[in-house]
């Protein structure tokens, strides 16, 4: 029974993290009594559990997530939405307009292919297809703004502890920012300068997500951007 790395060390797939019996957390697997990493990330030894905080990972859909997706196709009674997951998501009529499907509905008039939606992931069906809903405050078709993409595993860093990072960026830039858990960020500002601050800041956070003391550094970075 031994920890083979220091806490927060950078590990790669296949690296042996622990020998002996322990629970396996995120991004790890057990083989021949050893716990190994499956992704590049920082190792985290907790109480009786070993996990890896992934630095690179594609979006793993979880019920309750807020996502920003693009409508890519329309079926008879539902829209198909690309949310950068391993399978496309469904948005059915009752989840979009709060009314049952009727034959005289014209789906492209409500949402068309190419539209961007802010949606909540309400279910994952038995074929592992994510089910979306756009009923609720702040949800629905995105009318304005643009999208930035970052690695979904770095979204928690962008939000910060209890939203400290995103609230700071909101305050400093004056833009409206909607962060999808799937790595798409919808930004809408009053002018170009405001939006450019957000683009630069998000880019910096993605590059430096694995370093500590980030919120303070970002605050100084925004100041320097504003002075320019």
């Amino acid at each position: 029974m031994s920890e083979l790395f220091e806490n927060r060390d950078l590990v790669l797939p296949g690296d042996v993290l622990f020998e002996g019996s322990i629970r396996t957390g995120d991004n790890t697997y057990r083989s021949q009594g050893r716990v190994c990493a499956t992704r590049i990330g920082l190792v985290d030894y907790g109480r009786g559990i070993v996990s890896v905080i992934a630095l690179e990972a594609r979006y793993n859909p979880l019920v309750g997530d807020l996502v920003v997706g693009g409508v890519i196709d329309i079926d008879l009674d539902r829209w198909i939405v690309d949310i950068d997951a391993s399978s496309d998501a469904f948005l059915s009529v009752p989840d979009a307009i709060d009314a049952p499907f009727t034959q005289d509905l014209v789906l492209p008039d409500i949402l068309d292919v190419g539209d961007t939606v802010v949606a909540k992931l309400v279910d994952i069906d038995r074929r592992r297809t994510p089910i979306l809903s756009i009923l609720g405050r702040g949800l629905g078709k995105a009318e304005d703004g643009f999208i930035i993409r970052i690695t979904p595993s770095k979204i928690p860093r962008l939000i910060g502890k209890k939203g400290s990072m995103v609230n700071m960026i909101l305050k400093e830039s004056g833009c409206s920012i909607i962060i999808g858990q799937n790595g798409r960020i919808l930004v809408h500002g009053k002018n170009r300068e405001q939006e450019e601050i957000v683009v630069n800041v998000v880019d910096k956070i993605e590059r430096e997500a694995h370093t500590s003391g980030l919120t303070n550094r970002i605050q100084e970075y925004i100041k320097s951007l504003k002075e320019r």
Partner: protein
Amino acid sequence: MKLSKKKESWKRTDGRDWNELRPISIESGVLPNADGSAYIEMGRNKIIVGVFGPREMHPKHLAKPHTAVLRCRYHMAPFSVDPRRSPAPSRRDTEIGMVMRLALEPAIFLERYPRSSIEVFAEVLQADGGTRCASINASTVALVDAGIPMRDLVASCASGKIDDRIVLDMGDYEDKNGQADIPIAYMPKLERVTLLQMDGVLSPVELEQCVGLGVEGCMKIYEVQREALKKKYGDESKQSQEEE
């Protein structure tokens, strides 16, 4: 006595020792539009690899209900060899794509993403022998960069026989004029061989020597792959992360 002295001073056409790799360098995350990517220079080989997925499989009937499907495309650019090569995918391209798939499949947790596909695109910009090994090396780095869960990295290297001598990592000239060539892919932490091909003639003893030497070469390449992946995140000792 005379013979052993001759063996000591024996060098290959490019000045390498019998157990020496070509200069190798790998860079990860070179393509912003791909989920993961890598660029490798192994001797005069130059290969760029992009990885996409796991994502929805198209066409849908190729999806498997219990697992993801790994698809590998190997392609040589028309300007990668002299004389110019037709850009159309050849029988050889298809085969090497399959070889890459079989070498990488054992390392990936495909069963975690049913009905989806993971795609690897390797484009050979310049070829100088051993492109399948170099493609596998770069693909592994690109797969990790894409955040695809893996059991281990896959390192790959060829060994062979020239002038009745066992040598490591053969270049194009040695490949064509040598007596045998054995590409090997190896998972260093799990100690598993995932690819073993051979062309030419070897005795059973020589084959064993070749495989042993090839695995040694893979271990050296494994270290280069690790460095390439770590380089993107700078000095690891200073890292820490506060969670949400």
